[in-house]
């Protein structure tokens, strides 16, 4: 794996559990031994430096607050270790507490705090040190959904304000997308793709990234590529769609072969007269999930199950047939063997 994080950048490592993202982070921190390769911070190779000399700060998933110390002492610990003068410690802790809105909690013990407050203390402990790099190891995963959204926004604001390089590990692709300047998708210890959030979303490099980024996930269908009437077609027993000219060239060499076709739920819509007949499929409604701002339709398209994200005004009934239009500019095709995007 080879990854370069730029100064002041917020990079998110994302992937399913066991993909090596946490190990990567722990290697950067110096908590995990490196068998081969090199890690540099600034111009320094830090392979053999103990964590304390790497000028990093880390926020752990379980916060790792010291239960026997007050919030103040927890936050001041790193500064005390580095022998900062007392007034300076006081000032920095006060400032950090102010930023995070925890200054009334400074004299409490961690067990007297709520989950969100503990999380803030853990972040506070990291920022008082003004480190070169922040490392976050799934810092939001122990919070409830609402708090998680709130803290996500705050972390983003904090990073804008502090302008410090940050590496953030999460398994939640929404966190990755919203927080990262760049997102690194990992699987089984390998980097799948590195890029800005919208780039990953719009042009996933392979099937894994395509399926991992985005919620609800991208729909996949097994199709066979064929050529007829001077155009390329993707077909299976439930659908037959025309491949737009821009993609046709790349797909020509897959003629007669099976590939994976992908389309995101929002690129499906209830078909109207305006849709070209080549980009409409027949579907049967299976489940309707009204979310208020939108409706998710689980539909059966031949042998395949797909999810469509449609307008809240759409009225359909379960088990009834309907026609869905596809946005021809948003088709994705993946090689079945290599899973790479075509």
């Amino acid at each position: 794996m080879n990854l370069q994080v730029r100064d002041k950048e917020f990079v998110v490592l994302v992937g399913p559990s066991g993909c090596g993202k946490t190990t990567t982070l722990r290697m950067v921190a110096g908590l995990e031994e490196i068998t081969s390769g090199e890690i540099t911070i600034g111009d320094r190779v830090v392979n053999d430096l103990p964590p304390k000399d790497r000028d990093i700060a880390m926020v752990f998933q379980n916060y790792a607050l010291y239960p026997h110390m007050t919030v103040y002492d927890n936050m001041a610990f790193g500064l005390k270790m580095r022998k900062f003068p007392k007034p300076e410690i006081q000032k920095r802790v006060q400032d950090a507490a102010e930023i995070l809105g925890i200054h009334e909690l400074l004299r409490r013990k961690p067990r007297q705090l709520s989950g969100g407050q503990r999380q803030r203390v853990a972040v506070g402990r990291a920022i008082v040190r003004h480190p070169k790099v922040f490392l976050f190891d799934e810092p939001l995963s122990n919070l409830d959904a609402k708090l998680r959204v709130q803290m996500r926004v705050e972390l983003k604001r904090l990073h804008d304000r502090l302008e410090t390089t940050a590496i953030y590990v999460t398994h939640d692709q929404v966190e990755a997308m919203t927080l990262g300047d760049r997102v690194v998708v990992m699987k089984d210890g390998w980097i799948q793709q590195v890029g800005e959030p919208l780039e990953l979303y719009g042009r996933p490099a392979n099937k894994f990234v395509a399926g991992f980024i985005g919620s609800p996930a991208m729909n996949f269908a097994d199709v066979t590529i064929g050529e007829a009437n001077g155009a390329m077609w993707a077909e299976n027993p439930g659908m037959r769609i025309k491949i737009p000219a821009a993609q046709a060239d790349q797909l020509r060499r897959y003629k007669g072969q099976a590939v994976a076709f992908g389309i995101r739920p929002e690129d499906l819509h209830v078909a109207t007269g305006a849709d070209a007949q080549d980009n409409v499929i027949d579907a049967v409604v299976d489940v309707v999930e009204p979310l208020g701002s939108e409706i998710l339709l689980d539909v059966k398209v031949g042998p395949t199950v797909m999810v469509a994200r449609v307008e809240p005004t759409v009225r359909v009934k379960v088990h009834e047939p309907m026609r869905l239009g596809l946005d021809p500019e948003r088709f994705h095709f993946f090689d079945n063997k290599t899973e790479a995007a075509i």
Partner: protein
Amino acid sequence: MRRRTRAAGHALALALAALYSVFPIYFITVQSLKSPQEDVFGSPLWVRHPTFENYQELFAGGEARVRGYVIVPRVPFLGWVANSTIVLAFSVVLTLGAAVPAAYALGRLRPPGWRWWRRALFATYVVPHTILFIPLYQVVIALGLDDSHAALILIYATMALPFCIWILSAYYGHLPREIEESAFVEGATPLVAFLRVVLPMSRHVLVAAGLFTIGTVGQDFMFASIFLLDPGQQTVAAGLGVMDVSLEELVTVAGVNLAAIPVVLLCAVFARGYVRGLTAAMVEGA
């Protein structure tokens, strides 16, 4: 109605538990407060005219003399208490001093076979002590520790160590790794992280280990009476026990009570910590 009956039953059970636990101590205390006359003619269950005669006798010190029909031997009680305190204090310090690093090694650093080390240490509890004092005495002589408190301290430490290592290593083993790791990231060396973070966090377990050591030391009478023959070196147990043949039994009982008071107070102060410490070590099956 049913709830009331149950509450009453609960209260009754609590009362019974308390009574069962306290009665023997109450009983001996009552006897120790009696004058020789009341001891013979009074009721065994209460004392009508409490007197501290028997307690004062302990501090009379000096020469052996006649009291009533009995010859009261010299009772250097304060000296015994001082000796007991020394033995107790050093036993606790030595035990914890050896147990903490060992427990950290077994619970945290986990060298190959750590589990068997822990078990092997614990297995020393099956060694029968009955005639062990003969070779132990040889060891004590070889170390030049005869009539020395150090001999007792060493023996007591070996009796308390396995359990202390067991519970401490269980605690250290279950402590989330991130606690130390965050200290490393914050700039602490392993030693500093241990002293400033891990050790304070384990204070309740240390209390539990310490009280267990005190209990172990307090339980012994045999070794104390064998290894401490010099009256100037004797602990309370050795002194009272050896004296018992000639000492009036009520004075002995008074001495037992008096010596127990500080230990009991110590235990009472740390009782909650003791339970919390044991609990902390037991979480997740220790």
